[in-house]
C-alpha cells in the first residue's frame, strides 16, 4: 500500500465554465478564474464547510513538448528512426484530425486517438529513403548488360519458375500458400517435331494455352516448395521424352482423333474421286483404301481444290477461305469465274 502525499492548495475554486467549444479542451485557452465580480455576490446562508477534502489533481510538472525545441533544419531520420505510433509531443506539425460539424475546428494533435490509430510514414520520409537506398546500393548486384530486352531474356531463359512469398503478421513466418510452384515455358522453345508436338499437346492437355503458346504446369501437392520444384521439373522432362517415342498403338489413329484436317482421310476425297470417275463416266467400284491411295494429280487443277478445302477446315471458315474455295471449285468444275461488281 504505497503512501500518498496529498497536495492541497487552497482557494481558487476551479470555475470551469465549460466552453462548448468542439475542439478538445486541452486546446482551448484556460479560462482565468472569475475576476472579482463586484456585483451580485451570491449570498450563501447555509454555509456548508467544504466537507469533502477535494484533492486538487496533482499538478505533475510536465516538461514542455520536445517539438517546440526542435530546429527546423534538423535531420528527421534521427528524430523518428522506426515505425512508431504518432506521439504529439515529438511531431512538430500542427495536424488536426476528426470529423466535426461545419463551423468548428477538428480536434488537435494532443490526446487525439485517431492520429495514433492511422498508420504513419514519418520514419520513411523521402530523404530517409534516399539515404537508406544509398546505403543498400553497395550490396546489390548490377543487372547484366546483355539482358536488355524482353526477347533476350526469353532467348536465354526460356524456362520460368514462379514462386510467391508472403509476409503477414504472426509469430511464425511460414505460409502454406508459398509452397506452390508454377513452371512456364513457350512450346516453341521445346524442340519437338510434328508427331512429338501433337503427342506432347495431348499429354499436357489444357495446361497449354493456344493464344499465348505457353505451357504452364503448377504443382502444389508436396508440402515444401523444393519438393514441388523437383516435381514440376520431373513432369516436364517426362512429358518431353514420352512425346518423342512412338508407340505401336498410335498407328491406328481414327478420323475423330485427327487434330487437323487431312484431305485424304476424309469424305471429300471420295467425293472428288467419284465426281472425277463420273466425268469420265467410268464405273467406280473402288474400295476405301484404293480411294485413299488414288493419286489426285491426274485430276486437272484438283490440287488447288484440295488445298482450299484443307485451309477451309484448318484455318477456320471465313470470307477469305470461302472465296479461295469458290475460285478453286469453279476451276475444278470448269465454270466461269465470279463476276465482280463493276
Amino acid at each position, binding site marked *: 500500500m504505497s503512501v500518498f502525499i496529498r497536495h492541497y492548495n487552497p482557494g481558487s475554486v476551479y470555475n470551469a465554465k465549460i466552453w462548448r467549444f468542439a475542439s478538445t479542451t486541452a486546446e482551448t485557452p484556460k479560462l482565468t478564474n472569475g475576476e472579482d465580480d463586484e456585483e451580485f455576490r451570491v449570498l450563501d446562508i447555509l454555509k456548508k464547510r467544504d466537507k469533502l477534502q477535494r484533492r486538487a489533481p496533482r499538478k505533475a510538472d510536465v516538461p514542455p513538448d520536445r517539438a517546440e525545441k526542435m530546429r527546423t533544419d534538423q535531420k528527421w531520420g534521427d528524430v523518428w528512426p522506426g515505425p512508431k505510433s504518432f506521439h504529439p509531443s515529438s511531431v512538430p506539425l500542427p495536424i488536426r484530425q476528426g470529423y466535426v460539424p461545419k463551423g468548428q475546428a477538428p480536434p488537435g494533435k494532443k490526446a487525439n486517438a485517431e492520429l495514433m490509430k492511422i498508420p504513419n510514414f514519418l520514419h520513411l520520409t523521402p530523404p530517409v529513403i534516399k539515404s537508406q537506398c544509398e546505403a543498400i546500393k553497395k550490396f546489390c548486384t548490377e543487372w547484366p548488360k546483355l539482358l536488355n530486352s524482353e526477347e533476350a531474356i526469353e532467348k536465354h531463359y526460356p524456362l520460368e519458375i514462379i514462386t510467391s512469398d508472403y509476409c503477414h503478421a504472426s509469430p511464425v513466418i511460414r505460409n502454406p500458400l508459398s509452397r506452390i510452384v508454377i513452371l512456364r515455358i513457350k512450346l516453341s522453345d521445346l524442340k519437338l517435331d510434328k508427331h512429338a508436338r501433337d503427342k506432347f499437346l495431348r499429354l499436357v492437355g489444357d495446361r497449354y494455352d493456344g493464344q499465348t503458346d505457353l505451357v504452364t504446369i503448377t504443382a502444389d501437392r508436396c508440402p515444401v516448395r523444393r519438393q514441388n520444384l523437383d516435381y514440376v521439373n520431373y513432369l516436364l522432362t517426362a512429358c518431353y521424352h514420352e512425346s518423342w517415342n512412338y508407340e505401336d498403338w498410335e498407328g491406328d489413329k481414327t478420323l475423330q482423333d485427327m487434330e487437323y484436317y487431312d484431305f485424304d482421310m*476424309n*469424305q*471429300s476425297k471420295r*467425293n*472428288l474421286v*467419284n*465426281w472425277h470417275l*463420273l*466425268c469420265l463416266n467410268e464405273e467406280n467400284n473402288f474400295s476405301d483404301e484404293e480411294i485413299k491411295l488414288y493419286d489426285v494429280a491426274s485430276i486437272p487443277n484438283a490440287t488447288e*481444290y484440295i488445298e482450299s*478445302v484443307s485451309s*477451309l477446315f484448318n484455318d477456320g*471458315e*471465313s*470470307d477469305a477461305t*470461302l472465296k479461295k*474455295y*469458290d475460285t478453286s*471449285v*469453279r476451276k*475444278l*468444275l*470448269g*465454270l*466461269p469465274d*465470279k*463476276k465482280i*461488281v*463493276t
Partner: protein
Amino acid sequence: MLSRNIRLLSRRYSQAVTFRTTESSPTQQNENQVGLFYTMNNDVCKQLFAHGGLPKSFMKQTKTFTETALMVRLPALDIIDCIKVTDLNKPVVRYVLYGEKGAGKSLTLAHLLHFAHEDGFLIVHIPWVSDWLRRLPRDKEMSNSQSREGFVDIPLDAAAWLLHFKMQNQVLLKTGDLKTSKEYVWSKRESTPAGAPLAELVEHGIARVKYACDVIDVLLKEIKLLSNAKKCKTFVAIDGFNSFFYPLTRLSTPTKKKVAPEEVSLTAPFMEITKNDWTNGAIVVTTDQLAVPEDRQENYLPKYLLYQKGFEHLDPFVPMEIGRYTEREFLSCASYYRDRLWLRGPPELESELKLASACNPYNFMELCAPL
C-alpha cells in the same frame, strides 16, 4: 394539295434514276440490268409461287404494289451464266446461296426458278424445309411410314408438295414423254404400271395421301433416271437446306420421342437428289440462319450452318454470297419504292435510311413501312 406536289416531285425525281427494265425474261438479262427491277407477269408468278416460294412479307408487298417485281442481282446472273455454260452431260453442279438474314436469298432463288421455268427445266423446289421439320401447326399429322419402319411420315406436307410440283411443272408433265421406268405396287389393289406418265404418279400421290411420301421417293428416283437418260433437264431448288442437318427436329413419334431429320421419310429422297451422281441438271440450295434455332445462329457462313456432314454431302459446291444492296441497287430500290408510293419525303431521307438499315434489303423495306 401539299401531298400531291410532293408525289409529283418524287415521281419526277424517280424518273431521273431509271430503276425498271423492260427485259422481263431472265434468260436474256445481263450485267447492264443489274440493280433494275423487272416485273414478272402474273400467271407465271402464280404458276411458280402459288404454294410458297416467296416470303410472306414479299407477298404482301406485291399485293400493295399491284405487281411482282424482282430486282436483277449479280449472284443470280452469275448462276444463270454458269448453268448456261456447263454442258449438261457432266455431273450436276451444286450452288449454295448464303448470306445474312434478309439479304435476299429467297428472292434470288425465285429469280432462278423463273429462269429455270423459262428455260424449260423440270423444277423440283422445296419452298422452306423447316416448314416440314420445325413448324408444328395444330393439325400437323405425323405417322409411322409403312414402307420403311422406324421412319416418320408427314403425309399432308408431302401431298401439298406434290401439288406444288404439279403446279410448277404442269407444262412438262403434259407433254407426256416422262414415263416411269418400273412398276410400283402401293397396295393390293393400287399400283402404277411401268411406262405410266409421271403426271399419273403425282395424281396418285395427291389422291392417296397415305402413300404421298413413298410417291415422292419414287418420283425423285424416276426424275434422276429420266434426267440421266437426257429425257428432261431438272432444276433442284431447296430453301433453308441446312435445317436437314440440325440434330433435332420438332416432330415427335406417336410415342412422343423427338425425331432426328434422318428418321423423317422425306429427307432421304431429297438427300439422294442433291448428290452429284446424276447429270443433265442443276442444284441450287440456300443455307439460312432462320432455318435453325437460336443456338446455332452465330454466323451465316455455309460450312458452319451445314455442319460437317452437310458440307461433305455437298462438297464440290459453289458458294455464292448474297450481300447487301450496293450503292446503285439501293438507289434504284429507293426510287422504285417512291414510284410505288411506298416512300415519300425529301431526298436526304435516302441517305438516312441507307445508314440506318446498313443497306440490308429486308431492313430497308421494314424501315420504309411506317414512313
